[in-house]
């Protein structure tokens, strides 16, 4: 942990073994924080979805170790700590302080509540612990706080503007009471707050142990060396990527308030040791809540950057020095207060998907075709008649991933913004919440995402209220109108959507955005996530693999014939002769059409 004052003074280097041992110990402290918070929190979106991150920074807000369940938080902790330092000043902290924040300074939607706490060794500020977690409800106009139709951040919950929840180890009851009074789920909120705070105490204790064990100078130098080494390696890695300028443009479906598509674009420049991303030309922030604050966009971009450089390395601040990002202020990818940010994942995920589209054809060993992309988050709630209490469950839905050369896309996997996020089992959902599932299945037969390598399959879930009243659903399913993209002739996916099947008349409503939408006793909510994009011409797919797909009910015989040019007999065998003539008869109808977004 290098501090400004002694940058010059420290020249003694730390041997690589000590560096490894020290940075491992710090990483281990971050992981312990992470584990403790996950095992004690009360919001399912924390303990199952792992929508949280824990980290340790130096005294200048540089992240030295971080553990996250979702890559979407990569980098936002830095902004939290930096803003707290700016507000209170380096001398403005005492041991035992904990700062609470969730507003635009936190950099993601208001449900993501951050805590920042100083770490002292012998009265000297050596760094901070920081964590950020999705709380189920922080007030606002609708249950669960984020919505798809808010038109101002003030409708999306209470804002904690960097206030001290603890001062010198004592809880600030005024702040605490305001927090608890402004949530629909006070028990859950109290639990999450306590769990988050306790995990930070444990983290700080471990960090202090590391400093005492190895000495402040050694730890600082080890961290500084680690940053430099990280930067150096990333620079070397970027040199292996093809220099050039690549562009992509795309659209966000709509902002949830109007039906207008929102234009986004990027220009990517790989130049020797650096990568520059410029989003100039992207539409202004929208009236609806798909806007992404700068920090949220940067986090998703960083995750993408890591994926194309050193996906297996443990990152630190040094890794991101060769990355230059330009996002004009006031755009949908760099929104400013009071623009609503409830479904900020739509914007931030797109900030990563754009350069992904631009580079996928050029980095076939690292990138896949487009995936279902949207977090496809839902809030389902109502009154649980069995327990006689209100319930609220927030969940992302997994979907199909894109194919890549030699590999079909993965079926039913959480999106790029989510990570080691666990889908809740049906048996747990039904036990905990008054819901009943009719199906939980791969969305087959697959009718999109075909290719020499096939996009992964999406998920279809049907559920209904069971022993509940006043049911409702909120859902933000982006990539509904502009589906996941194929590469090199691979077909696009089919888009995410929700259907409400009304029991009364059996009518089916199709949606991509819902807020506080009624779910009657016998209505079925059907959540469907998209197939991923394919890679390569489907007519080039090995007929044996097409046959396997047919035997596993992934595709129909008709799809095999029409999309893949593969004839399968009624007995389920390959008809080689008919296949040859189908394939000779010509290319598939859409062959040769450029993929959307790939403009280079």
């Amino acid at each position: 942990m290098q501090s400004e004052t002694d940058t010059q003074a420290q020249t003694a280097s730390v041997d690589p073994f000590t560096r490894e041992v020290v940075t491992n110990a710090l990483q281990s402290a971050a992981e312990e924080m992470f584990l403790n918070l996950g095992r004690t929190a009360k919001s399912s979106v924390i303990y199952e979805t792992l929508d949280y991150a824990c980290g340790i920074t130096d005294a200048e807000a540089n992240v030295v170790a971080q553990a996250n369940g979702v890559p979407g938080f990569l980098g936002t902790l830095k902004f939290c700590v930096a803003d707290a330092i700016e507000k209170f000043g380096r001398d403005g902290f005492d041991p035992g302080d904990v700062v609470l924040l969730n507003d635009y300074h936190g950099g993601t939607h208001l449900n993501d509540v951050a805590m920042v706490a100083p770490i002292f060794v012998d009265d000297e500020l050596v760094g901070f612990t920081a964590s950020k977690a999705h709380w189920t409800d922080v007030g606002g106009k609708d249950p669960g706080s984020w919505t798809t139709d808010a038109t101002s951040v003030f409708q999306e919950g209470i804002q904690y503007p960097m206030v001290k929840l603890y001062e010198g180890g004592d809880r600030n009851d005024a702040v605490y009471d305001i927090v608890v009074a402004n949530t629909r789920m006070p028990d859950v909120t109290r639990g999450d707050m306590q769990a988050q705070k306790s995990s930070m105490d444990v983290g700080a204790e471990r960090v202090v142990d590391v400093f005492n064990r190895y000495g402040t100078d050694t730890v600082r130098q080890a961290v500084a060396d680690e940053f430099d080494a990280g930067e150096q390696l990333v620079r070397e890695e970027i040199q292996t990527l093809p220099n050039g300028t690549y562009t992509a443009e795309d659209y966000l479906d709509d902002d949830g308030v109007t039906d207008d598509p929102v234009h986004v674009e990027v220009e990517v420049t790989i130049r020797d040791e650096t990568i520059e991303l410029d989003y100039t030309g992207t539409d202004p922030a929208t009236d609806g809540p798909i806007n992404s604050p700068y920090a949220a966009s940067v986090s998703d971009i960083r995750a993408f950057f890591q994926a194309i450089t050193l996906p297996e390395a443990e990152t630190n601040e040094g890794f991101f020095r060769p990355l230059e990002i330009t996002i004009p202020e006031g755009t949908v990818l760099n929104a400013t207060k009071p623009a609503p940010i409830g479904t900020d994942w739509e914007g931030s995920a797109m900030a990563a998907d754009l350069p992904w589209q631009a580079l996928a054809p050029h980095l076939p060993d690292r990138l896949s075709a487009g995936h279902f992309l949207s977090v496809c988050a839902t809030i389902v709630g109502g009154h649980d008649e069995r327990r006689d209490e209100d319930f609220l469950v927030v969940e992302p839905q997994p979907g199909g991933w894109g194919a890549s050369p030699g590999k079909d896309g993965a079926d039913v996997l959480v999106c790029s913004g989510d990570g080691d996020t666990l889908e809740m089992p049906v048996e747990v959902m039904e036990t905990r919440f008054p819901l009943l599932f009719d199906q939980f299945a791969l969305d087959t037969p697959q009718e999109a995402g075909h290719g020499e390598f096939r996009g992964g399959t999406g998920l279809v879930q049907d559920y209904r209220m069971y022993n509940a009243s006043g049911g409702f659903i909120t859902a933000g399913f982006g990539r509904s109108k502009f589906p996941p993209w194929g590469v090199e002739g691979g077909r696009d996916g089919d888009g995410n959507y929700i259907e409400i099947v009304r029991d009364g008349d059996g009518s089916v409503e199709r949606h991509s955005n819902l807020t506080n939408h009624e779910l009657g006793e016998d209505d079925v909510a059907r959540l469907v996530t998209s197939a991923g994009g394919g890679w390569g011409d489907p007519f080039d797919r090995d007929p044996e693999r097409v046959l396997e797909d047919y035997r596993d009910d992934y595709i129909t015989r008709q799809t095999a014939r029409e999309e893949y040019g593969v004839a399968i007999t009624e007995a389920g065998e390959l008809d080689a002769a008919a296949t040859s003539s189908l394939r000779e008869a010509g290319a598939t109808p859409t062959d040769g059409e450029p993929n959307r977004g790939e403009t280079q």
Partner: protein
Amino acid sequence: MAEDTSRVAVDIGGTFTDLVAVDDGALALEKASTTPSNFADGVIDALEKCELDPGIIDQFVHGTTVVINAITERNGDDTALLTTEGFRDVLDITRANRPDMFNFQYQKPEPFVPRRHRWEVPERVDQSGDVLTPLDEDAVREAAREIRDAGFDTIAVSLLHSYQNPAHEQRVRDLVADVHPDAYVTLSHELTKEYREYERTNTAVLNSYVRPIADTYLDSLEGRLHDHAVDGNTYAMKSNAGTTSFEQARRRPVEMVESGPVGGVYGAARVGEQIGDPDVVSFDMGGTTAKTSLVQDGDVTIDTDYWLESSQRDEGYPLKIPVVDIVEIGAGGGSIAWVDQGGSINVGPQSSGADPGPACYGRGGTDPTVTDANLLTGRLNPDYFLGGEMALDTDAARDALEPLADEFGTSVREAAHGVLRVVNSNMANALKQVSLRRGHDPRDFVMVASGGAGPLHAATLGRELGVKETVVPRAPGQFSAWGMLLTDLRKDFARTNVGSFDADTAAEIDGIFADMETEARDAYAREDVSLDDLNLERTVDLRYAGQEHTVNTPVQAETVDASVVGETIERFHDRHEQTYNFRMDDAVEVVNLRLTAYAPMPKPEVSPVETDASPAAAVKSTRSVDFGTEGVHDTRVFERDALPTTEPIEGPAVIEEPACTTLVHPDQTVDVDALGNLHIS
């Protein structure tokens, strides 16, 4: 319970099949090569080599890799799955997580049953066990016929919420038996009565997948033993550190998945008891991995959240069966040191394995390994490896480490130290994970070290961790087999029953425990085990209402009433605070009820031996050993069997035995007790 009985334990490892026996108070040790083409050959070889009179063997306890090998090598039998309509895809959906977060070409684990081998049947039970849709029996018969005609002999049945109401699964078995009487049928609820459909289904699937192989193997071994005039009772080691009859093991083979390693943890628990320190951190380091587990008050830690083949980059496959909670990391004698993408030095998880092995084995290995580093720092004796059967090549070790030294601009010796520091720090982190991170104070624990490489690193780690003392038991290289010698019959039962835990629900909970007890007694009675000494332990998985994860908390009473509930809640608050640093005033919920039923078996006892001699007489040589920051010391080298029990030995010291070397630091001392354990403090 020590009685006049003779017992033999045989543990099949990757390279050797270890045999440990107690005959007339004396410990007998034997090794034979493992014979992967037919593991039973190795078992019989070991029996023959040890020249024990087979007729006197009352009990034969067996740990085997046959199950884990069948899974790892994917050579189990094609399995059909019968499941609830609408839910056949749980094996593909998994938990949908991406552990390898920045890999945008992540591939999920391949299911053990492809989609085309799954049959759905209409039926539905809700979370409380109520039937919403009756079982469609014609659909089951039709599916069974299709399964039979497609040539499947092993079938897994997993229906939604069967842990709550197993009637439909049971009925499926009867219906299948009518159509396909020879099939092996595994019902998910018989393996676990906990919720989470993917985990339970995968457990049933893997059990079905290995069942024919395990059945054939145990049948053949039983026959061979019989031919060899071993007529005692035969028991298999299960992953819960207890044993079961061969008969039961054949029905539930997946429970043997960690058959071998748990022997070591159980052994560590018993060593702790012998020496009067029942709180133990076990540490077992072999050629490829190091394993550690926590033992509290003599009890091994069990949980049912086990994932096979999982790593930071892969989800792996869940098994919802009781398995000793072992933290395993890729750190062994053969672990390779390398420089990663981030320019940092790493050791493991890649290992040079048994072949070619570390560079110093002189079998063509060129990668620098932990064993090479130990040799170059003088900690290992090049002339006494495997009792001198194999000479170690110091030059080859030096050549292997040279590139690493060059990369970091240090000497080979420094690089060797660096490798040892990194591997020790990795292992220390794992040890802290099982102790410190779960709120325990390492100073309350002793560390029991085993495995071929364990004693060489144990004293360093014990000091780093700050344990009370480090103990190296006898025969540390065959310690898993030793642990198996001391096991009891054990069955674990669990029921998911989510709800309030308070005075009002005490009677209901008591009723469920009573049912589980009946189930336990019936199960043992069917195996003709005496119920007189049956030892029942009850625990509950509790949490604050609203939390998901639970803290396992003992119920220290035979019946549950309001006051027992109150005491248990108090215990839960304490444990929660110890583990997570806080407690709350919130209502408490129960998730699972657990019952462990032990049937103690008579066990032989090893007679103590006092050796009265001066330490000086046990010194066989002196050599220069590099202790890193503690400097280079001329160090006395002892032969373990010659050590006196009457006088402590001051470090620095190296204690050699044919299969292992124990390192003692300059400021440490060693005591030897009458059972042959080394105590380093």
